């Protein structure tokens, strides 16, 4: 778990800075109440399964105001005017890039397969070990890795 969490942190930084122009910092091993507080906000969540040397799932939980900012930076136009398809698409592409980039970093020689990202209710975001809270210049978001 430690190896993939380390790779995921580097990956998240690269994706957030390269594609969304947002520098990030991490809060590792957040308390359950911090995760619950994030889940209590208006947010969107998605999940992506992966398999290969190891298998598991990556969950991404993003508060709506931050997703609007990310989508706006990504697409180069105000996120406030974007519909659900673009916002959800941005969310799912984000988890796709974060996960694929992280798995390449764990071991570039070992093949892996990614599933198709799917939207999930924010309430399904796990509150167990394997969660990173990601601090941005605005709202915080969270990533969780479940290993199978």
């Amino acid at each position, binding site marked *: 778990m430690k190896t993939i969490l380390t790779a995921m942190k580097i990956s998240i930084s*690269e*994706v957030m800075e*390269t*594609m969304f122009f947002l520098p990030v910092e991490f809060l590792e091993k957040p308390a359950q109440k911090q995760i619950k507080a994030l889940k209590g906000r208006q947010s969107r969540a998605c999940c992506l399964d992966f398999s290969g040397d190891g298998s598991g799932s990556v969950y991404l939980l993003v508060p709506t105001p931050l997703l609007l900012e990310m*989508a706006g930076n*990504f*697409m*180069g136009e105000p996120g406030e005017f974007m519909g659900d*398809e*673009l916002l959800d*698409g*941005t969310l*799912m*592409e984000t988890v*796709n*890039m974060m*996960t*694929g*980039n992280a*798995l*390449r970093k764990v*071991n*570039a*020689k*070992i*093949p*892996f*397969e*990614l599933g*198709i990202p799917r939207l999930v209710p924010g309430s399904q975001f796990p509150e167990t070990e394997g969660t990173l809270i990601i601090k941005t210049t605005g709202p915080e978001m969270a990533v969780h890795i479940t290993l199978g």
Partner: protein
Amino acid sequence: MISLLIVDDSLPMRSVIKKTIRAAGYGQSEFLEAANGKEALKLLKNNWVDMVLTDHNMPVMNGLDFIRAVKADAIIKTIPVVVISTEGNESRVREFMDSGAAGYLAKPFTAEAIRDLIVKFLGEASYDEDYSDSNENLDF
């Protein structure tokens, strides 16, 4: 003017790639879009493009199967197909290239990397800026 087909199941990603290419100087480019390999093959039956940029991880038909189908078609097999994907471990990239892909770019990518790809396969001359410069220098 260049004509490109972008194949990706993510609408935002297709939009970002288009905008990046336009911002790189190819303002008059013509874009076709498909959400998976099967849709892309249908488009290629009736439209000629200079280059294809495709994701791998898509529903219905993934990028690898799409490349194999393109390269098996006598008419469209000469079109360069470049993979832009998160799935880029060494064996998968080798599989893309062995199947006939012309190149590979990992996501996340920079605008410069996209521009370099277009220049590599379609050449500097297709820059709209170069095009307008050359028009000014035409001797009638």
